């Protein structure tokens, strides 16, 4: 029974969505937005679930004197501090005329967001540039035929994306060899490869969905497929 009920709910919900895709008439046409509202409500509650889990794990790390306890302390201070600043700004903003939201520019919460959160996120994102360089270095080593083809394709695509390479060969020919070849690689082999993967993904999604709707695949609710 513990597994039958979730499977039944999944099957009904899956069938309703599948049918509503073909029936634009109300109420089927509206089912996606109705379910979307439900998901939003569930997510709003789940945020608290996540926050409480984070606090619980962090407090446990501190109490068990784990090696990571310093990071856990920073998490707790940051979480509670940001929450407190948000509540303070929201409360004091209500007393002002016109009322000020805690998210409005100039609030303490906005300061935390703009000068702490955003630069930290940007720092993590900017690390991508260095990782692309290190990954490219490994990928572009001509160890075998495939890697050599990748190296050649990469050279032409990168060369074709900047005007300098075409300009360098302009004394020899007016034909923009690099940009033409880069466009050709992107338009034909690259698009063909991507579409092949896309078709495979679409079939995989259909197959997985069918397995879940028909109750063949059950391991996501525990206990293997059977």
């Amino acid at each position, binding site marked *: 029974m513990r597994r039958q009920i979730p499977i039944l709910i999944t099957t009904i919900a899956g069938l309703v969505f*599948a049918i509503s895709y*073909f*029936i*634009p*008439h*109300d109420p089927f*046409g*509206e089912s996606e937005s109705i379910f979307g509202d439900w*998901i939003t409500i569930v*997510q709003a509650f*789940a*945020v608290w*679930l*996540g*926050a409480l*889990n*984070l606090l619980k*794990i962090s407090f446990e790390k501190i109490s068990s004197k784990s*090696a*990571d306890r310093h*990071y856990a302390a920073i998490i707790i201070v940051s979480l509670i501090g940001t929450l407190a600043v948000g509540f303070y700004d929201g409360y004091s903003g209500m007393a002002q005329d016109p009322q000020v939201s805690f998210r409005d520019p100039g609030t303490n919460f906005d300061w935390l967001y703009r000068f702490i*959160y955003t630069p*930290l*996120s*940007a720092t*993590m*994102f900017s*690390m*991508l540039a260095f*990782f*692309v360089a290190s*990954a*490219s270095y490994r990928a572009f080593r001509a160890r075998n035929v495939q890697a050599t083809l990748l190296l050649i394709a990469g050279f032409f695509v990168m060369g074709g994306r900047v005007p300098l390479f075409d*300009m360098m060969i302009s004394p020899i020919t007016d034909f923009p060899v690099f940009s033409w070849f880069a466009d050709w690689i992107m338009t034909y082999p690259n698009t063909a490869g*991507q579409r092949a*993967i*896309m*078709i*495979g*993904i679409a*079939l*995989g*999604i*259909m*197959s*997985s969905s*069918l*397995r*879940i709707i*028909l109750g*063949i*695949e059950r*391991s*996501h*609710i*525990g*206990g*293997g*497929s*059977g």
Partner: protein
Amino acid sequence: MRNSFEKTRASRALLLVFVCSLLLLIVSFSTSVSAQADNDSDTPADSILALAAPAPATDLKAFDTDNDHGHSITIEWTLSADDGAGANSVISYRIMKSESPDGPFDSVGLVPLGATSHVNSSAIDKNSEGYFSDNTDYYYRVEAMTTNAALFSSSEIVGPVQSSGQWFNAGLVPVLIAILIFTILTMIFVQLAKKGMDLYVRPLAGIEAVDEAIGRATEMGRPILYVLGLGSAADIATIASFTILGRVAKKVAEYQTELNVPCYDPIVMAVAQEVVKSAFIDAGRPEAYKDDIVHFITNSQFAYVGAVNGIIMRDLPATNVYMGKFFAESLILAETGAAAGSIQIAGTDEIPQIPFFFVACDYTLIGEELFAASAYLGREPELLGSLKAQDYAKAVLLASAIIGILLINIFPDFGETFKSWFEVID
């Protein structure tokens, strides 16, 4: 001395090349700007203020929009004689709507010159302002506008016309047929598999490596990191990842290895907790399950990446498994894992991220392999049967593509008809 002289000569040459490139850039930019200015001066908007009303739009038609949920009317017309020709004074068309042929008419849309249709749809919620009611008579007219707001001409009035929702989207017939064929194929192969038919499934190196990777972690006494990606619990890639997590967790419980599942989404966390708990129960080791195996980190993309990278660098996991939906963080995570010396297995349906995983991980499940992985790991006949159906569907699609290419090149007319059988109008 000579070396320094050559260096100076080389740097001068480089400087010269740079200055020349800069000059070329400036010249081409100024040329394109002046060409753009010339083009812009040709548009009617820059012409002098119109002095006479333009010819009206003609042949106005209004009808219920096809294959929709109602609350929408499509209006079509023939261009004014002064749109792109004649006095060339039309700059836009204003669509006017009323519930009576005598008015008053309200503006419900504005489209630029050259446009010959407009879909009038608005609020479908009865309590919203501007609610578009089904089964109500509406009248339309189209006004050809000029740069002079006072000079425009109205088309004839059409109506009454009513909107209504359809019970079947006829534009999706090819999708319905494809789904039916695929479902029948799946049913057939599942039944054949149940009857004991031997189904060959191509080996997936990434999945075969899972057992080896868990064994390695056990031998090294280091944990396994399982990342479910940034998808929500509604994403099929995340659901596929749950099934793989279930298999991995069962093995982990059997081998008594440490598992760490940091989550980005609290709902995904709640589901993953249940999956891992069930796997530990199935493995006969419920007491080994701990609440901190699956834990929430944050709902912020790069904060999550920072936290997971921190876990990788501090715990140095023997194996990192990345399965699900990944975006810009894929390479940051995978490169950090490579730097930590972990065996890495990844799988995603996000096509732009596949090359990053391919480069940085030891094994990568490409696209559909992610969805096949759970069936492959389970080896149950029903699951393998569905994989076989997937392979046959792929063969049908490949054959259709080859036939289509041949027909388009040999019999273009029939080729176009053949192509239209696969077209979806949504």
